[in-house]
């Protein structure tokens, strides 16, 4: 009994030490963002000996007359529009695949499965050409429109699996009560699909927030910059960056994702667990 207790204690201690080591880079980022520039790389400890908010003030000012508040607002706008698009159109498609019978259903479904595995780059250049022809470079359409066309088919598959778990008797009794297929979606399936919708929403939010590659390709006007682009612009790989401001804005950039994760983590982690996402 005693031995078991001690073993348990050692085990927990090891797991916690390992956890802290895992989080150390993040903790270092937070702590350094509160240190004066000259201490960031000279003081090894996590607790700042001199505590300052200057980095946040300097960083928030942004560059070339555009403040970081603008970048945050832009990122929020893109992410929220993306979330709405994905949740609505992917669940529509998932409902059709999981519950409705229609012509060529099997073909469309297999094509949808294949698109999950397609690398983004094989469509990249023509998409860019199309968006360029439409004069959509330096707008948010190239970033948001694909989400309103259920382009992230991964979420369709996830929701199809979820809908298949909803008892068909519910649909049948609704049909007897006079619901048509459209009403079945809005009154039966969608309300029950909420947990899957929340996981999809959170993943979409994080992925759009971090989608540095597309943002870099389609946005070059500083007023349209996102948080990721803002941080990348503060950062000069040759070493002449204002590290304090850079780290402060980097730390801030992680706050929205972290908050959303902590609020919804139950849905989120169980969602990953049941769908095998990512």
């Amino acid at each position, binding site marked *: 009994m005693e031995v078991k207790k001690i073993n348990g204690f050692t085990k927990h201690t090891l797991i916690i030490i390992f956890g802290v080591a895992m989080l150390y880079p993040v903790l270092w980022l937070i702590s350094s963002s509160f240190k004066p520039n000259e201490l960031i790389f000279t003081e090894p400890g996590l607790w700042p000996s001199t505590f300052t908010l200057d980095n946040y003030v300097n960083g928030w000012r942004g560059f070339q007359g555009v403040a970081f508040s603008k970048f945050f607002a832009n990122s929020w706008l893109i992410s929220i529009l993306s979330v709405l698009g994905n949740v609505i159109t992917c669940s529509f498609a998932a409902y059709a695949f999981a519950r409705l019978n229609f012509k060529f259903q099997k073909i469309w479904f297999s094509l949808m499965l294949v698109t999950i595995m397609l*690398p983004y780059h094989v469509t990249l250049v023509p998409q*860019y050409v*199309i968006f360029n022809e439409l004069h959509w470079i330096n707008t948010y359409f190239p970033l948001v429109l694909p989400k309103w066309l259920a382009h992230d088919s991964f979420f369709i598959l996830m929701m199809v699996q979820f809908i298949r778990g909803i008892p068909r008797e519910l649909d049948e009794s609704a049909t007897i009560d006079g619901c048509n297929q459209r009403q079945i979606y809005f009154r039966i399936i969608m309300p029950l699909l909420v947990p899957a919708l929340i996981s999809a929403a959170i993943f979409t939010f994080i992925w759009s927030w971090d989608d540095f590659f597309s943002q870099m390709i389609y946005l070059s006007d500083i007023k349209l910059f996102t948080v990721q682009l803002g941080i990348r612009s503060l*950062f000069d790989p040759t070493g002449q960056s204002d590290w304090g401001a850079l780290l402060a804005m980097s730390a801030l950039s992680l706050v929205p994702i972290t908050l959303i*994760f902590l609020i919804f*983590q139950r849905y989120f982690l169980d969602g990953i*667990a049941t769908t*095998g996402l990512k």
Partner: protein
Amino acid sequence: MRKSRKPLANQHNLTAYTFLLPWLIGFFCLTLGPMLGSLYLSLTKYNLLTPPQWIGFANYIEIFKEDDTFSNSLWLTIKYVFISVPLRLAFALMVAMVLNKGIRALGIYRTIYYIPSLLGGSVAIAIVWRQIFDGSGLVNQFLGWFGIQGPSWISHPSYIVYTIISLSIWQFGSAMVIFLAGLKQVPADLYEAAQVDGANKVRQFFRITLPMLSPVIFFNLVMSIINSFQAFTPAFVIGDGRGGPLDATMFYTLYLYMKGFSFFDMGYASALAWIMLLIIGAFTAIIFVTSKYWVFYGDSKEGR
């Protein structure tokens, strides 16, 4: 009866296709059309300003015959994928098994270990990574305690790729969460029976745990390989954004990006994209074909 059913079926088709409409538009305009488009562009010389000019297989011939940067970036990416994916999955499985033994506060540990996966894709963390692997960064300070003088990981061409690999392994949390869920599905009586038969822990692991988890491992392996092939942000931010030092961070996608969007050689970039598709397709096919030898779906019909 028959007559009245047909309009109903038509009506059902109509409803279904209404629900499917956004996806269908996306499929044709954002996936199928552009895919064929990039196949066509890969056979042309195209700089976005003047119309594409047909050059047949010249891009492909140049890529395979003359382009050293291509072969270098392909090998670099393959090295990255084949070191980081197995290590990340192995690590995830290991931690999942430690956490699975009915431990208290599992929820909190699960959350803590998931945080790297959550944040790891951002530019912010890539910048932090660059900093902690710098000559006087945290990693070398840590090694210094043991009297080891570490190199500057990020400026040395042969080490910087390991910096990027370590960032990928650090994000083992998402795979771990999936493995944890998979481990919960393994019936406890299997282990009890094995214990009665005198099988030790190692044997139990290879004969019970691994086979029972193999569908989950299979799925993770496929998706991780596909995603890792497309890694961009870490290479772009931890390196200098142009593949340096000495092309040591010239990942495949970065090379494709530079060809297409720095040099505006979009035909060439499309050819690179199609080669990438074929390579990823080949690896995926190999995993799928070999899966019948190592993926065990059990005899229950519940298996995914």
